[in-house]
């Protein structure tokens, strides 16, 4: 591109030919007011507030719009002459005559010294800047919005004024709208407060989680406008370091390691299968995980405990053992729920004036300081009701105004059936094994129990190691556990691994197979049978040989050897025949 010399308000500047005046002025720090300009979109010159005076230095002069007037060599621009100011004032007054006095216009009017617009003000909050139309076309690529009608009837609309099928609900139009004419909630008629309480990222490009290593954002292709429409690419335009890679794909890397720690964690039980609790039907029935997110100061509600309609709850019911200690779902106790339910009570008492009702089967507050915390909760006037929460029904069931929901249960301490009115119900859902735990177990050649948790080498003597050498367990993948227990197990697993790595060599089990060369016929049956490829055939001697370091002592070759040449150490034929003999005589 050719370079051109331009003078803006007395400052010389070299610009690319074809660039617009506004860019040059902004790079010099000269402010030109605009209403319809936005980076990354084609200039449109709809508002005409960016009027400037162009001169050629020989007497020719003209009022032009800075946002879309291309520069040429020798151009002189004046941004503050009385003529420019007058043009801006007239343009703004004409715009105001049809538009409602929205803040963005008022502010500009004050700036230009318009006390009272000559032709009055209108009532349309849309100033027809066209930003929404352009963002939808050029950035998002959805083409869901357009100008319709002409002259004084001109307006921005979706086809036939209804909800457009092309609209992807991205909210970009609401984001760029300078007057607030387009509000996100008009486009997206869904609930506002609880919508974001999910573990999914809120933006299509975000950090996986705050402490992620490496701490870099990633794009979710499902939600990214670029991956859906091919448009947008705003993130790559704003990134100063050119870090955005749209063509980056998933890569599978093979890393050779000496040991593996499995810390795959747990899944949360889906309470919607327990229809009686109404999860998914009543918006104020939330899982513990969702409530935890609500309490997060950086979460969707900014740490406030709110109902779905944005109000503060008057009473909260906490139902323990949802899916745990239940013959129909998981028979085991999930171990952590009692304590986090107390924590929730404490938080509710601290942040709101709400009553808290806990519905429990048994309180399991074992552990250091746990019982004391339970006592503290009791002192904070939390209502503890001994009885499994049987059902959650809407308050209209009893025509009560006290709460939005009723928790029904049998209070087994007073022997009475109770219905407790609450506004919100928190379900303490069970911890369950990951859905793919069996697959992972198979990959690492370890086993899972009936509940899907990984089985440790020994419940008392080997709670960290597994039946596969070099594979260790940490955390809730082995059984439900709380943070202190997980940290302990993780530390133990790490020290097991360090022991292996620091030693630099491993001790082999004394049990392995050995081939007696004098008896080996060289038939090579054992070669193919060995699952570890530990048996090699020595061609010059015409015998097979076991590599003791690779042999795992399964003994399948011992059983298969037609000449009995293979000895399975510690499980020799003699030993087993002797056992048979010993048992039967």
């Amino acid at each position, binding site marked *: 591109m050719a370079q051109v010399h331009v003078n803006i308000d007395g400052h010389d500047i070299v610009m690319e030919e074809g660039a617009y005046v506004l860019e040059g002025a902004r790079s010099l720090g000269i402010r030109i007011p605009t209403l319809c300009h936005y980076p990354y979109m084609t200039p449109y010159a709809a508002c005409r507030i960016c009027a400037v005076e162009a001169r050629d230095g020989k007497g020719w002069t003209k009022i032009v719009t800075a946002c879309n007037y291309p520069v040429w060599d020798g151009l002189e621009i004046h941004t503050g002459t009385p003529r420019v100011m007058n043009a801006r004032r007239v343009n703004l007054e004409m715009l105001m005559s049809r538009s409602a006095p929205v803040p963005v216009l008022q502010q500009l009017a004050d700036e230009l010294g318009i006390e009272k617009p000559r032709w009055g003000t209108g009532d349309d909050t849309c100033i027809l800047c066209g930003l929404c139309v352009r963002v939808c076309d050029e950035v998002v690529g959805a083409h869901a919005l357009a100008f319709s009608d002409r002259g004084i009837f001109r307006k921005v609309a979706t086809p036939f004024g209804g909800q457009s099928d092309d609209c992807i609900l991205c909210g970009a139009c609401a984001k760029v709208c300078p007057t607030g004419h387009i509000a996100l909630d008009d486009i997206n008629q869904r609930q506002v407060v609880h919508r974001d309480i999910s573990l999914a990222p809120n933006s299509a490009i975000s950090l996986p989680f705050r402490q992620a290593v490496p701490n870099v954002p990633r794009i979710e292709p499902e939600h990214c406008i670029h991956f859906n429409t091919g448009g947008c690419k705003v993130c790559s335009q704003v990134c100063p370091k050119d870090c955005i890679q749209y063509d980056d794909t998933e890569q599978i890397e093979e890393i050779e390691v000496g040991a593996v720690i499995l810390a795959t964690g747990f899944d949360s039980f889906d309470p919607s299968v327990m229809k009686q609790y109404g999860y998914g039907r009543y918006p104020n029935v939330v899982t513990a995980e969702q409530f935890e997110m609500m309490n997060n100061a950086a979460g969707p509600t900014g740490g406030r405990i709110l109902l779905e309609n944005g109000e503060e709850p008057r009473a909260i019911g906490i139902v323990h053992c949802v899916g745990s200690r239940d013959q129909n779902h998981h028979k085991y106790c999930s171990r952590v729920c009692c304590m986090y339910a107390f924590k929730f009570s404490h938080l509710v008492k601290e942040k709101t004036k709400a009553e808290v009702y806990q519905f429990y089967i048994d309180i399991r507050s074992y552990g250091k300081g746990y019982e004391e915390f339970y006592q503290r909760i009791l002192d904070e006037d939390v209502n503890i009701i001994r009885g499994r929460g049987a059902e959650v029904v809407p308050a209209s069931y009893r025509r009560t105004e006290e709460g939005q929901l009723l928790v029904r249960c049998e209070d087994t301490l007073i022997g009475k059936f109770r219905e407790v009115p609450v506004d919100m119900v928190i379900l303490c859902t069970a911890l369950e094994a990951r859905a793919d735990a069996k697959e992972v177990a198979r990959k690492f050649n370890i*086993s899972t129990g009936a509940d899907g948790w990984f089985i440790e080498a020994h419940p008392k003597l080997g709670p960290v190691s597994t039946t596969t050498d070099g594979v260790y367990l940490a955390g809730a993948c082995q059984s439900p556990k709380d943070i202190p227990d997980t940290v302990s197990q993780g530390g133990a697993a790490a020290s097991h691994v360090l022991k292996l790595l620091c030693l630099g060599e491993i001790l082999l089990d004394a049990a392995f197979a050995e081939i007696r060369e004098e008896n080996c016929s060289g038939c090579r049956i054992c070669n193919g049978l060995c699952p570890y490829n530990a048996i090699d055939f020595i061609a010059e001697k015409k015998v097979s040989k076991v590599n003791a370091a690779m042999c795992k002592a*399964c003994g399948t070759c011992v059983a298969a050897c037609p000449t009995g040449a293979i000895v399975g150490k510690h499980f020799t034929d003699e030993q087993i025949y002797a056992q048979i003999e010993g048992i039967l005589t």
Partner: protein
Amino acid sequence: MSFEPRIIGFLCNWCSYTGADLAGTARMKYPPNMTSIRVMCSGRIDPGFILSSFRKGADGVLVCGCHPGDCHYVEGNYKCLRRMLLTRQLIKDFGIDPVRLRLEWVSASEGARFQEVITEFTEQIRSLGPLKLGGLVPEVERTAVHT
């Protein structure tokens, strides 16, 4: 006095033996007729062990391994399955009812299943009565080749 069958069980170390251990630690009750011999893998079980057991007076032989696909040694249980199917044919030729040799998959977490298998197999052998060999199995002492 009623007939008490003598049963030899070959249990693999990782699944079935651990499952038996679990049944024990969980205080599950099952008949005492089975005595177990631990092998590292069901793939270690030589058909010779089974023939020898029958000849020495066992009324039934139970072979337990990991569930298919769960073998600690990748596929030892499949090798065991193949061998046991052939061994059944073989003992039939010797005049032994093939149901006296049973192959079961018991995992480390299936203490209850172990109890069930033992109870059921013991009852089955009890109803079959003592094993009578009828002189078909040669009275030759089986010795390993290398001794």
